[in-house]
């Protein structure tokens, strides 16, 4: 009991958010903003997260989502909001998602605007458990994205028992794709499977025109990366749409 109280009372590092858009390059609309943790002086996420004791991480994770919703609403978000979720908080805390939904209600953000992002590596261990827990909330309108897709050893297997709303292609697959046959073959396969299953594919970490052109030619139209917009510190940054040659 007292342990729980101490955890609740322990001071968290000061943190805030940067927002990076996920853009649809065909319609030139912003599909969503991903909320990225930053220090109050715009320190990178890892510098904040390393200050959080492991046993407090899921509470921090929960609190971060609530704060991100508050800030996004103050900034006047008019599209989806992608929020990171540690699957372990889902297992260890019954309020992990409820608190996010409550915050959404409090700030009048429709639940259907929220996309929870989990990384591939974190869920493969117990896919069935994760799917059954998260599906309850999907029934309420929450969307789910799998982050770093293609980074681990599971890849497409993951889609056998669980079809998320979005997958985010791992940057490793995107890097230099215009000149790398194996990367092209794998991304083509992922794209085809996702199309067949009605899953949106988002290419992350796109940094060069050549990467962008290859992916756009393949039919990918959702992008997140420096080429389009850098994360905006406590703001929605300006967006640049590159022209294909």
């Amino acid at each position, binding site marked *: 009991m007292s342990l729980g109280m101490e955890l609740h009372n322990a001071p968290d590092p000061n943190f805030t958010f940067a927002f990076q858009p996920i853009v649809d390059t065909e319609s030139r609309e912003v599909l969503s903003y991903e909320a990225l943790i930053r220090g109050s002086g715009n320190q990178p996420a890892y510098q904040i997260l390393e200050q959080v004791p492991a046993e407090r991480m899921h509470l921090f994770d929960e609190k971060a989502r609530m704060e991100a919703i508050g800030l996004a609403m103050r900034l006047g978000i008019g599209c989806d909001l992608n929020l990171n979720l540690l699957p372990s908080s889902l297992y260890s805390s019954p309020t992990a998602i409820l608190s996010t939904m409550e915050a959404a209600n409090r700030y009048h953000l429709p639940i259907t605007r929220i996309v929870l992002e989990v990384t591939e590596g974190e869920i493969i261990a117990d896919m069935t458990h994760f799917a059954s827990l998260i599906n309850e909330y999907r029934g309420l309108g929450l969307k789910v994205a799998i982050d770093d897709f293609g980074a681990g050893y599971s890849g497409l297997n993951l889609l056998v028992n669980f079809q998320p709303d979005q997958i985010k292609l791992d940057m490793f697959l995107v890097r230099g794709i215009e000149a790398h046959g194996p990367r092209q073959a794998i991304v083509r396969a992922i794209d085809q499977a996702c199309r*067949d299953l*009605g899953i949106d594919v988002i290419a992350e970490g796109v940094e060069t025109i050549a990467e962008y052109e290859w992916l756009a030619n393949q039919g990918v139209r959702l992008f997140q990366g420096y080429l389009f917009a850098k994360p905006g510190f406590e703001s929605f940054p300006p967006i640049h749409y590159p022209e294909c040659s």
Partner: protein
Amino acid sequence: MIHLIYASVETQAFSSAQLTELLQKARVKNEDLHITGMLLYSDGNFFQVLEGEPDSVDGMYKKLHLDKRHQQLTMIVREPIAKRYFADWSMGFSSVTPEELRQVDGLNDFFRDGSCFVGLDNGRAKKLLATFAEGRWRARLASTERP
């Protein structure tokens, strides 16, 4: 509430009278079971969305397997949904030629007034419908479409 989306292939060519009869019966039954959805028929291929409580939908899908009028039932997705996409339709229906499906305009026609696709937001059902239109999930392809 869930939706279940599947594709199948007719065993013998349906006449339009037979399709009409199938639909009439299906709609009465679906209303009883609080099932909504839509059925698309194109050149021998079916694409159907069933929405409702898990028991009703799973029960119906089981029964559909016993129906000798179609075969190769392929479940594409079965997942929870927050709201019905086809709330006003005990079973919306559209019969289209592969050519119509292939043309973007043909697909746009679906979204005209009076069609069950009006107001369909950009969720899974709509995306999969677009995929079906592109020729995926059609086990039987028209001869002109064969590679």
